[in-house]
């Protein structure tokens, strides 16, 4: 996103978009995956590239040829539906998840009903009676769109801050 903070996004819009991100987190943290899915447009591009360790100054360390997620609405729906079966063991018993969303910056997008949204995420998870708390963190670059008065995410790129993931799996959405 550009460096100077553009002022021309109204506080109301910003508030509504921020609410969208919080509502998303709430649905995910309360196992309302189907409701979450409704907050994504049908043409959602949901990506999560790998992050690598690279030598040099002023280099990019977001992998362009490897990913954890490269999803469409259809593939996300399959993942979500699975979580409602009786045998998705990774979430049954359900883990306790929390998506802390901070540093939200909103900017005008390429189309007049779209906005670019940058946010930071800190994800925490607790499982069963274990005492080791899992976490993941990084940045999300979204595009949100106003669809008949409802805000929805139409593009999301999740950038993790680790080269080696330390959660025992990545069953979570981010």
């Amino acid at each position: 996103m550009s460096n100077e903070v553009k002022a021309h996004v109204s506080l109301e819009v910003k508030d509504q978009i921020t609410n969208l991100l919080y509502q998303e987190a709430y649905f995910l943290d309360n196992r309302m995956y189907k409701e979450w899915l409704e907050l994504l447009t049908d043409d959602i591009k949901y990506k999560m590239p790998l992050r690598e360790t690279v030598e040099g100054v002023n280099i990019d360390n977001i992998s362009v040829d490897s990913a954890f997620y490269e999803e469409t609405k259809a593939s996300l729906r399959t993942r979500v539906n699975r979580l409602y079966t009786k045998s998705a063991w990774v979430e049954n018993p359900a883990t306790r998840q929390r998506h802390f969303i901070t540093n939200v910056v909103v900017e005008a997008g390429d189309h007049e009903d779209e906005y670019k949204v940058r946010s930071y995420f800190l994800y925490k998870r607790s499982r069963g009676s274990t005492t080791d708390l899992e976490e993941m963190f990084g940045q999300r670059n979204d595009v949100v769109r106003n669809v008949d008065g409802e805000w929805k995410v139409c593009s999301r790129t999740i950038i993790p801050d680790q080269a080696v993931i330390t959660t025992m799996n990545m069953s979570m959405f981010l």
Partner: protein
Amino acid sequence: MIKRELDEKLIQQLKEKMDEGLLPQWVITDPDIYELEKEKVFSKTWQFLAHETELKEPGNYVTRWMVNDPILLVKDSKGEIKAYLNSCTHRGTQLCTADRGKKKTFSCPYHGWSYNLDGKLIGIVAGNKVYGEEMCKDKWGLRKVPRLESYQGMIFGCLDPEAESLEDYLGEMKWYFDMMLGRSDGGMEVIGLPQRWVAKANWKSTAENFAADPYHVQTTHRSTVEMGISPEDPLYAGYGHQVVMKNAHGINVITSKTGRSRTEFQGMPKEMWPMFQRNLSPEQADILERVTVFVGGVYPNLSFVSPVHGTEGHLHNYLNFRVWRPLGPDKVEVWCWFMIDKAAPEEYKADAYRGYLGSFGPTGTLEQDDTETWARIVEVSGASMMRDKELNYNNLSNYLMGFSHVKQDESFPGPGVAYPTTYCDALARRMHEHWLELLTVETSVKEETK
């Protein structure tokens, strides 16, 4: 300086129980066993490092690990691949911490010693001024991994200079590698970096789970049944053959009730089939035509799966290799590679990659449920009732499937001992027996440190 070894009594007990198809549970995450494994399993056997397509040009490098040994794998100026301990010979500093890249010289951030692609020490800051003749540069090049060999583009390293050759070590598995990796002109290629994450698991459990346990599919992955993706028949992953090979390698050739997959050649594009037939022997081609899933492993910690995903018309096949790098008795760093036929259409490759992400790796819906069962094994493995070495509590894992009544199928065309079902613990038993053989080999090292 602390002496660790299996005493005779425990060895006898383990042998006896294994002969009955049982494995005492205390060995899974025992910390002393783990120390022994690092020394007697992982310092003696061949371990997968990379695929040749990860190092395209001279100067390309990747950094890898053999358990705790940091490895620097480079393609030298002559195009040969070399493997070094990724550690400066001066004081041991890790030389390169990047995952991959391209360079001509590796220089150390501590005192600036630098090495070329041949591992030669080519630069010592102010060397001529500060070192005397006892400093013989040639003796201080990067330390080579004692053995480095490859087969079908798969590069393996071994820390034991005396080890048998990779080809001998792979033995019968070569025939299956030829089938999976050699079917296409130009072979296979790795896409991107391997995914890496740390699972709660013991490496023996993950290796067994992947290479030797199609039986778990019907329950661990039952969600696919609930979703109508997999058949209701609980035997569905059991049709086909489990092949047990020398050095505890093995493969499961899963077909279906009819003996054939619902699609030929794992749903690879029709135009590629003739190429497969040209590159393979009739027997290999026949298996490839009929198979649904290949899943197996090269002992100790390389596993692979080649499945079919998607719906008619949009079927995809790919090859997933993974290394179970032990980080402790109850921790495994999983390295997960996606491989596909170089000759496949680019769009097919992209679709297959997305199919892979949906099934395997940390975000794969199949693998997610595996991680839960792996964790549930190590999380209770500290129990006295499981750790008890006197077996007072019947703390034995059960490997009785197919123990007595499943007989070898002589008609199976591939090498190795083939059994006519993959719901069979023959391979798992072989893996654990081999593990015990390795653990109980007396090494000179052991002798001397006593």
